[in-house]
């Protein structure tokens, strides 16, 4: 009887070795899969002798992953804000002829040239075109700013869609994990998929994952709004068509965020703050309107300084000599009168400082935001490296494979030896 038992024990060893080899190959194959949790066989000795697989352990450091998710959300948010401010700074232009300050200087230069030879129609036309270029540049910055708001709006809408879809998927995955787990099936792949799905939401909203037991998880924003607890919550957002300056949440033209129909604040307790979603809202509702307001102040200042000259109101575009002779003149005057042009020039005093002010306002914020983004990215990277360190190490897997090979050979040797013993027994 004990020879048969030895055979059966050796066979269980072979089975476990095969399973272990399978596990190793699974790990090696997924060495580069994001969100793959390293698997290991859980073994125990059988009551009847031999070895048995009691389950598959999936290694995932939940605390580390939770920290990494919050850091990822912060890094994505800081990155979006920095990218927005950098875009606006670029559209204003820092130095050179293409910048706002450069355009103001260009207009001043054209006026100085025209004032030194007021009879020259070409120089007056140059003033008109420099004025047009400046006004066009201001319009361009407005377009960029509103374009950024539009992009933020689109970003919010697609993020909300993605979060809703992911929450539904998680609800489904939770249910399948509960069923498969209770039936003793391997739920590793489902767990991998669930972790990846949570990661997708986590870049938009910083999350806390709460273990509800039985393999179930609930999701809550960092500030305490429940997104998934058995049932998936529904985020709501109405995308506006085209955003123009002056549209805001207060005026009712833009939508805020709702959770199951209730307004969801973007900061403070019970809110969805801290992630890329909140950053997009901040761009749409605070940062871009602030930049626009500074630009509007500059534009109003510019137009007030040139009021009554026709430079920004179209009269001078058709008849450049009106810059020299005034809007009331019936016909072009003698041509040597530079007093109006000199008046415009002295009226421009301080305008380039105002242009620089617009730039400095954005640039200061951009530099601060980039420093914050660099810091939060470094933090997120550190946590990511720590998380990845717990991933598949092919060297370790190869070592395991060596041991599996040896164990398999040893178990086979046992069978061979038992066989020889049986043969010897039969040969008596």
């Amino acid at each position: 009887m004990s020879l048969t038992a030895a055979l059966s024990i050796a066979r269980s060893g072979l089975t476990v070795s095969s399973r272990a080899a399978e596990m190793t190959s699974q790990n090696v194959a997924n060495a580069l899969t994001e969100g793959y949790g390293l698997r290991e066989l859980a073994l125990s000795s059988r009551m009847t002798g031999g070895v048995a697989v009691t389950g598959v352990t999936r290694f995932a450091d939940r605390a580390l992953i939770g920290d990494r998710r919050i850091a990822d959300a912060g890094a994505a948010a800081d990155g979006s804000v920095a990218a927005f401010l950098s875009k606006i700074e670029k559209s204003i232009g820092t130095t050179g002829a293409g910048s706002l300050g450069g355009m103001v200087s260009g207009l001043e230069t054209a006026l100085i040239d025209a004032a030194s030879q007021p009879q020259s129609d070409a120089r007056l036309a140059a003033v008109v075109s420099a004025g047009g270029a400046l006004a066009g540049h201001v319009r361009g910055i407005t377009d960029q700013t509103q374009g950024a708001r539009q992009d933020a709006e689109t970003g919010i809408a697609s993020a909300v869609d993605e979060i809703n879809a992911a929450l539904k998927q998680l609800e489904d995955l939770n249910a399948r994990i509960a069923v498969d787990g209770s039936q003793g099936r391997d739920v590793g792949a489902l767990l991998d998929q669930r972790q990846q799905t949570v990661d997708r939401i986590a870049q938009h909203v910083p999350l806390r994952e709460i273990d509800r037991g039985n393999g179930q998880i609930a999701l809550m924003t960092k500030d305490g709004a429940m997104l998934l607890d058995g049932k998936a919550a529904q985020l709501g957002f109405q995308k506006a068509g085209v955003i123009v300056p002056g549209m805001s949440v207060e005026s009712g033209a833009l939508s805020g965020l709702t959770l199951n129909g209730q307004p969801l604040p973007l900061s403070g307790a019970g809110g969805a703050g801290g992630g890329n979603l909140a950053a997009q809202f901040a761009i749409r509702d605070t940062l871009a309107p602030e930049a626009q307001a500074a630009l509007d102040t500059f534009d109003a200042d510019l137009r007030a300084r040139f009021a009554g000259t026709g430079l920004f109101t179209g009269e001078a575009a058709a008849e450049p000599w009106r810059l020299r002779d005034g809007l009331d003149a019936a016909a072009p005057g003698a041509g040597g009168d530079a007093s109006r042009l000199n008046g415009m020039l002295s009226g421009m005093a301080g305008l380039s400082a105002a242009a620089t002010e617009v730039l400095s306002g954005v640039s200061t914020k951009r530099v601060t935001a980039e420093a914050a983004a660099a810091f939060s990215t470094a933090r997120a990277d550190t946590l990511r490296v720590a998380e990845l360190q717990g991933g598949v190490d092919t060297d370790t897997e190869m070592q395991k494979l060596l041991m599996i090979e040896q164990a398999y050979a040893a178990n086979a040797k046992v069978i061979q030896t038992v066989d020889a013993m049986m043969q010897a027994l039969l040969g008596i």
Partner: protein
Amino acid sequence: MTISLGDMAQSFALRRQGGALKAEQQRLGSEMTTGLVADTGKHLRGGFSGIGAIDASLSRLEAYRGALASATMLAEGAQSVLSSLTEMSDDLATLFSDPAMSGTAAGLNGAAADAGQRFRSAIGLLNTNVGGQQLFSGAATGPALVDAETILVALEGATAGAATAAEFEAAVATWFDDPAGYATVAWQGEGARAPSAIGARESVALDITAMDPAIRDTLKALSMGALLDRGALDGAARSALGERVGAALIAGKDGRIDLQTRLGSAEARIAQVQTRSEAERTALGIARNDMVAADPYETAVRFEAVSSQIETLHAVTARLSKLSLVDFL
């Protein structure tokens, strides 16, 4: 205790380090080649007011360079016209005051013919156009004065009743001072030229026109000589008028010198502003450079350091990828 180290941790860390080093190398490379910091906003911590003001001043100074050149051209042109006028008036004064010349009819006729020539060239000089701008027309862009023939014909009409040199001179003087005379018939300009801005807070008035009393007095004297050439008055009255032409030319000398002095001081001011602007440009250029220039020594040293860091990283990456247990089994 860590018993294994995920493959992806290593490759992620290496990728990140490689990316960061390459970005740094690119930034340092562009700083080395342009000599300017790559990210002005970051370098100035977002404060553009200093460099913005410098850029505005520099472009303003650049623009006023053109205005200065144009003002210099106008002032120099006017000065050379005035000195020609003075010179020809002095020559004629000598001629008419010389008894040997004005004493005889032939001598007087010769001097008168010369005066006729000079009057015409004086009108031409006053109508000089420099770089598209009239020198003595004030705010107008056309010639300052009508042609010499029209003026002389008008003067002949005005002096038709004069029998003596004194009456003749009085009639000519009246015509030149009469708003319906010189100011209407001869003068085609308009007002005075607006002061030319030659700096942010500097302007220079180049406002001498053909209506200026000194120029009018000179033309008055020259025109009397020219009218002699056209056969004004007879006998003794002619030689008396000749003497009066000489006297008037000498009397007008102070006025002409005053005018040249006025213009000279304007020229001096322009030159002064020009020198100051150039000095300011240089100083602002240096200040701007101090603000945005990348220190070439520091940049080069750091570029070298980053390059060797990248080489090390590549070596490490190559070594690490060879160190796989798979290769030894």
